[in-house]
């Protein structure tokens, strides 16, 4: 990585870094708030991974290593903004106010979504990666037509950047000057494929070819991600059109609980990124600059622990939906095959034996 290409405001050791275009606007309470967010979301992720290992979740997509990218972006988003995530945006979901239990409903297998997307102004996860970038652009075109100063945010990664839909989204966003921020988390790995297979140039530079600005930010520096995203969103709010923000980060965890990263990457590589850990970096800044003590951090740890335990209890008492739930929202208006299916299922009774 060419360090000069990347906006960084705090070094991995927790020291301030000067940047010609960006400086942090945050006070200590906000920085500590970000530390709290990151710690809690990592704890939620660890609990979810344990629940999967214990057979209580079908799958989990951990976010470990990407907490700064997500909390920095999530906290930069305002009430006015609407996000279109993949299945790994738990940190963003947290910032949008989505309850942790709702984040797990998809992975528990009781829903294909998990929450009311209009209420949180945050869509449910898109699993066919790339599709959601076009949804975000369409939503942004709607914002334009309504003449409001909102923006949409499209979340995707280095892997999905190869999808044709992402290129189409870039074309449309540029052609219509849509108020959208493309928030690309380059976590270096698309399951087993390195980002070098997806691109020959730094991904943020693709934007220039489509006719809008792109910027790379240190995705493990929560202060930098916050400022860069905030400015991109403000630009969109003010009618300045799209921006591609590439948060350069690392997926410390497996792709999902079904993945085995030891088959494709080295321990040495993971070690390098451990030293750039986003939570440790923020903690180092708080200690170095604001003399925060262990008691501050211990308080957050205890809060995170309580949230995780409550999440476990809530998940285990989450009821399965009635099987006829499948018919409830397939269509908005009455449909004969839906009526037939529901009647058949009720008349036959429901057997859990399918094999």
């Amino acid at each position, binding site marked *: 990585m060419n360090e000069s290409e990347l906006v960084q405001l705090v070094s991995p050791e927790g020291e301030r870094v000067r940047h010609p275009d960006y400086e942090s606007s945050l006070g200590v309470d906000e920085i500590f708030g970000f530390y709290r967010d990151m710690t809690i979301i990592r704890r939620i992720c660890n609990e979810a991974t344990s629940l999967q290992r214990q057979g209580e979740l079908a799958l989990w997509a951990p976010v470990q290593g990407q907490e700064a990218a997500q909390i920095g972006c999530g906290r930069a988003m305002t009430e006015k903004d609407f996000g279109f995530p993949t299945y790994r945006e738990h940190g963003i979901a947290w910032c949008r106010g989505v309850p942790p239990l709702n984040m797990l409903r998809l992975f528990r297998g009781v829903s294909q979504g998990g929450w009311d997307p209009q209420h949180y102004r945050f869509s449910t996860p898109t699993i066919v990666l790339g599709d959601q970038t076009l949804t975000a652009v*369409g939503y942004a075109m709607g914002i334009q037509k309504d003449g409001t100063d909102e923006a949409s945010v499209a979340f995707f990664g280095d892997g999905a950047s190869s999808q044709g839909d992402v290129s189409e989204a870039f074309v449309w966003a540029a*052609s219509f000057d849509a108020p959208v921020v493309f928030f690309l988390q380059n976590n270096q790995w698309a399951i087993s494929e390195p980002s070098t297979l997806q691109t020959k140039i730094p991904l943020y530079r693709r934007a220039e070819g489509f006719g809008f600005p792109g910027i790379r930010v240190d995705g493990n520096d929560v202060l930098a991600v916050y400022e860069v995203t905030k400015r991109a969103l403000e630009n969109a709010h003010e009618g300045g059109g799209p921006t591609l923000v590439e948060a350069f980060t690392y997926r410390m965890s497996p792709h999902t609980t079904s993945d085995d990263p030891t088959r494709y990457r080295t321990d040495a590589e993971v070690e390098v990124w451990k030293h750039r850990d986003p939570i440790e970096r923020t903690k180092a800044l708080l200690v170095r600059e604001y003399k925060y003590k262990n008691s501050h951090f211990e308080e957050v740890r205890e809060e995170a622990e309580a949230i995780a335990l409550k999440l476990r209890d809530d998940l285990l008492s989450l009821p399965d939906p009635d099987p006829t739930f499948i018919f409830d929202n397939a269509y908005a208006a009455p449909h004969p*095959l839906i009526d037939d299916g529901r009647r058949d299922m009720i008349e036959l009774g429901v057997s859990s034996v399918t094999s």
Partner: protein
Amino acid sequence: MTTTSLTMAKALNAGLRKALENDPKVLLMGEDIGKLGGVFRITDGLQKDFGADRVIDSPLAESAIVGTAVGLAIRGYRPVCEIQFDGFVYPAFDQIVSQVAKLRSRTEGVYRMGIVIRLPFAGGIGAVEHHSESPEAYFAHTAGLRVVSCSTPHDAYWMIQEAIAHDDPIIFCEPKCRYWEKGDVDLDNPGRGLFEANRVREGSDVTVVAWGPSVKTTLRAAEVAATEGRSVEVIDARSVAPLDLAPLVASVKKTGRLIVVHEAPPTASMGADIIRRLSEECFYSLRAPGLQVSGYHTPYPPARIEDAFRPSVDRILDAIDRSMDYGL
């Protein structure tokens, strides 16, 4: 009653105009639909009257036409996407199947996917490859979607308006070979609902079900059959998915014979599905197996020989003969 004579192209244009007038959330989007009025001129003059903000000339990317329509629908708009030709819909297939069809269900009813995807479909205009296909079964197979097809200017005028006002996503199949044929349009009364079949000819010997371009061909065959003493009942399905089954069941119980006519290939087709369902519903009334008159299981042929692929009057008459020959 106000009746006027219009081509199907003009009727669709008038229907789209009404929809734009009636609901400010209605948007048209597609390639060349603005200044040019679409390659078939279905949207002729609409951008001039409603503005480039509502009649949107889109970049050449079908997945994006549908994908951005999804975002616009989430925002409360009612996008009407024009896919220039049937065979160009496949780049958008993922967006249609994975997002348009499923988002309402995925969000447990929160997102309204009130999107219409207009497909000028089927053959008969002497076009090059990818301009003459009948992909309705792909979409009928996908839960969450509805598929309809108009066969007359009157239905075109009303069905497009009803489809746009509907809260479910609808694949709207327009028989392009009928675009320039005139017919009476009753501007006051649609006559029937969007998802209702229409018995267009009464008969007693055999029931023939068709939709879109095949309805007229079937009616011609029925006239010829009548000269041979055969009484053919013709039903325009109109809604391919869901099917309006009750009138089909009533007809087949009466005639005991069923033929389905469509341009798509026969395998896993809507014809096959209609025969399956009526075999079950009308088992004890059937005097012959249900038959299909369809395209062949080949890619659509070059234009000079397309008439050998499409269901013709002769092939429909042959199927009527074969059905009657069972003699049960």
